[in-house]
């Protein structure tokens, strides 16, 4: 799991928040699934930009997951506007699942 950010300490806080957004089918958080690619903070414009992906482009849960990411980040960064961008470049693959996530799936 490798999430890039211009302010790593704030990114860690954001990821802590996003640990509570789950893929309901798999039962893993989107952070453990490796769906988050990048989280940037623009302090002058008070904006959080999250770049993320989905396990498959037309995942039936995709819209719901994206909206829940916005909702969760808004809850933690109250003074910021939240922007969530979806990308499929590079596409998600199983190697992005965290070690703890892989352990959970092996159970």
């Amino acid at each position: 799991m490798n999430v890039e950010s211009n302010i790593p300490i704030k990114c860690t806080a954001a990821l802590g928040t996003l640990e509570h957004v789950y893929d309901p089918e798999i039962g893993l958080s989107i952070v453990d699934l490796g769906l988050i690619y990048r989280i940037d903070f623009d302090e002058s414009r008070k904006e959080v930009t999250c770049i993320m992906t989905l396990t498959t482009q037309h995942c039936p849960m995709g819209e719901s997951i994206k909206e829940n990411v916005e909702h969760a980040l808004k809850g933690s960064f109250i003074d910021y506007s939240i922007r969530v961008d979806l990308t499929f470049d590079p596409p998600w693959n199983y190697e992005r699942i965290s070690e703890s996530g892989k352990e959970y799936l092996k159970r």
Partner: protein
Amino acid sequence: MVPFVNTNEIKTTSYKVVLPFYIYAGFSFLAATIMLSTSASAFLQHYFHPHTLAITHMMALGWGTMIILGASHQLVPVLIEGRLYSEKLAYASFAFSATGIPFLIYSFYFFNMGWQARYGGELILLALLCYLVNLGISISKSKTENIYAIFVFTAAIWLLLAAALGLALIYNFTSPVFPKDSLHYLPLHAHLGIVGWFLLLVIGVGSRLIPMFLISKYSNTSLLWWTFLIVNSSLLIYLAFFLISFTGMLLLIPTSVLIFGIFLFAFYCYRSFKERIRRKVDLPMKVSLTSVIIMIIPLLLLLLLIIAYSLYSTGNHSNLVSAYGFVIFFGWITVIIFGMTFKTLPFISWNKVYHLRASSGKTPNPKDLFSSTLFKWMLLFYLTGFILFLSGIIFQLILPLNTGAFLLLLTAVFYNGNIFKIIFHKPESL
């Protein structure tokens, strides 16, 4: 610059489009099992019995096709990686088929091939045209070409051909459309539907969903292409043999080709299962995988039928034909529907109810939306009822037929109870 995707591009098909198909299919299954209970003795007679025809079409159209149409409207975006072209066409497809099916079933049940049968058949054909157009435009607008979409589209074309032939056979009852009577063309009509529609669709959707739900690393597009070519070849060979009146042992040729195609699909499922990341496999997924194994039963019966008709062409093998149809519609297709309903419907309902609550960490999982106890009882009734009824057909005994039919009726009641539990699920207060 990373290319971003607009949210509109990942929107899934509305649950309002999909749920009517699921509800209709559930009621059709119940109606089919009620007819089975009241007409079990029809399975002691020739397979071309009005009640047997009515039950078969209720299972093929009302149960199998309706649920597949509903699920595929939901799954097409996943399969083609693009949006469904039109929800209005999907509604039209539902309205036409939902109206046409009862007309057709009524006509078969009372063997009245008058205007009701013709209108029913025409409405169903119209519904399938709407589906095919919707699917075709959705695929043409998709940016990625993939094997799953080709499976589904080809399956829909075969279904349209099967339905068109079926309608022509209805007309053939009252005015000569074909040189021979409708019974002669029945195997062709049935196999266009069973192999062309159901099998191709199950392979196309299954090869996408099975690795997805198992979280499997396995992927083999070339194997799927081979499967596609082989299954379609078997059907085309059968069609050619039928048209040039090749019968008897020669039918083993398309059957062998078909068996090879099914073997490739089974191998694909096996490898997906072996290379899964998620070790724990839930019950609906186990049921879906079991349906792949169950495909052996109709294949064995088909081989037996070909051999029986070749060696004893004047003999009465009607019970074997009835058993063959029964294991396809009440066996293979029903099992895969059981598995896939309880994998897909909870998602649809969960999305409807908990759309914006997943970040709260207190939402149930989709699998918690149905009762696993009801599901297990349903499977128990089903398995017992299926074995009893099949034994009744093969050995021509009324007691196992009646008992089996009653257990299958209970299965349908439990199935409907559980799907209504999912559909009308209310959110827990947070």
